[in-house]
């Protein structure tokens, strides 16, 4: 569907201008301008409560903005529902896994694919050879969960659940994926696997990754943004950020809660 549109002169996939969100008196996100290029890989750093997850929620439409506009692939999506943004190629994972615990890995990923593909009320079983089921299997392979494909999700380890979250974001030709702390709670080995997985994602998939672990963030990202108190406080290449005194102070100090 996207292909029939005339080529978009805007090289950015995501443009936020003046995007803000308040919860009562609390300013969670304070008028952020952010521009992400197509196929870009961006890391978001920032202490707890900096507003990173809220910013993701605004991008996906999970919560509405208080002010500002959001353009995805050049089109204004500020008031679109999450599912309409998903159908345009935006995906996300959640900081706390949002899975269907009594269904299998295959069924979880299949449902994610079906949500995008349509025919969601079908009373028919989808056969293994069906293209959509094949796609679900490919996404499961991409996160190395093949062996657990028929396992009930409630029985997966924490690390496997994080992998499954990613598989569910890979279905249906995503163009930009928002990863919300995918490495949270992972062992060092699992972290290494995650880095390899993210680096190995197809070139055409851009992503923004929220990550506390600077090592992970700096390995996978082209550019890094640092958030603090609802604002983007610094933007730069991994090298610049790693050697930035203000960022170091923010990370090592604890004066911000």
């Amino acid at each position, binding site marked *: 569907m996207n292909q029939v549109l005339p080529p978009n002169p805007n090289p950015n996939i995501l443009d936020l201008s003046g995007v803000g969100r308040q919860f009562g008196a609390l300013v969670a996100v304070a008028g952020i301008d952010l521009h992400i290029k197509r196929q870009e890989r961006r890391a978001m750093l920032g202490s707890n409560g900096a507003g990173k997850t809220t910013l993701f929620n605004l991008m996906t439409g999970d919560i509405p903005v208080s002010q500002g506009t959001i353009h995805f692939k050049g089109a204004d999506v500020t008031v679109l529902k999450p599912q309409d943004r998903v159908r345009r190629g935006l995906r996300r994972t959640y900081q706390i896994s*949002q899975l269907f615990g*009594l269904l299998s890995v295959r069924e979880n990923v299949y449902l994610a694919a079906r949500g*995008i593909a349509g025919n969601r*009320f079908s009373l028919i079983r989808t056969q293994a050879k069906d293209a959509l089921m094949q796609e679900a299997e490919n996404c499961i392979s991409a996160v190395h969960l093949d062996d657990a494909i028929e396992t009930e999700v409630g029985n997966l380890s924490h690390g496997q659940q994080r992998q499954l979250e990613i598989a569910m974001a890979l279905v249906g030709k995503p163009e930009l994926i928002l990863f919300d702390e995918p490495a949270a709670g992972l062992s060092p080995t699992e972290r290494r696997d995650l880095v390899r997985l993210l680096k190995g994602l197809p070139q055409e998939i851009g992503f923004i990754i929220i990550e506390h672990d600077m090592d992970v963030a700096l390995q996978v990202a082209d550019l890094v943004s640092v958030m603090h108190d609802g604002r983007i406080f610094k933007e730069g290449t991994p090298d610049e950020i790693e050697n930035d005194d203000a960022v170091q102070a923010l990370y090592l100090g604890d004066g911000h809660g």
Partner: protein
Amino acid sequence: MGKYIVLAALLLAYPTFVGDFFTFQIGAYALLLGTVALSLQVLGGYGGMVSLSQLTVAGIAGYTVAILGDNTTNVMGLGWPWWCVVTAAIAIAAIAASLIGAISVRTEGIYTIMITLAIAVSFFYFVRQNYPVFNGFTGLAGVEPPRFGALYLRDPAPFYYLSLAIAAVFFWAVRYERHATFGLALQAIRDNPRRMAALGYNVPLHRVAAHALAGVIAGTAGVALVWFNGRISPGTVGVDVAIDILIIAVIGGMRHPIGPFIGALVFVLLENFAIDLIDRERFNTVIGLCFLAIVFLSPDGLLGLFDKARQAVRADTPKPQEPRKHPDKLHHNR
């Protein structure tokens, strides 16, 4: 698969081994009550929506049969041909179920139970107070199933096979649907409705559709039940009976479509034979105690107990492979 063939053979042969009472009052009745409870199992077990108005939906179908078809009460009895009556009754039940769904789907947990209970109570008082159409307290009597030549559907064996056919069709339909797109989505909505909405599913509409499908199941059983009783009155759709349906589903187990039928069989046997041992008033106490015992021992009803027993037996024998962590998977037939 094999176990279902054995079960089917037993159920088909059953009337040849037992008398009319066991064929009709126990066999057919348990199958039909089980079918009504199956509609609750679909909503509660797969949809996470415990509805107390499934008996009401069956009752709406039953009243429709008595009103549009023939009865001997001189109230309504429009005398439509039986196939029109049956089609209309099931369609009206499905529509009513969709409306009940539309009213209740935005609630969760205990509130769903309360709203559907309120609907059941309202319907009970409504038919009891309405004389022109529902003939109030007395209800409508003399409702007959169709005759096909010498075949009289109310005879024990034909009626048993009719009930068996209804139960079997819906049992298989539910078993199939559980792994179809609609059924998977329904279970996923039960587990995490917000995520399903974010994935592009219309959660309220999906739930209403589940109510409609469950309405077809309950409505079809309702048609057969009015033929079984030959009459329908407010007592048929009372709250006590609505709660019996819940008890049946919970006793049997809400996890798998066989549960409601096991529950119905236990319930019907207790209802018929506990009375021989104790007097009528104590019957509810017995049912209540059985209910408590089963719920305490196993949140998954008798099905859960079977699974536990099976696991215990397995644990005693040397394990060929890692033991099943998941009782659920015992019933997965892909």
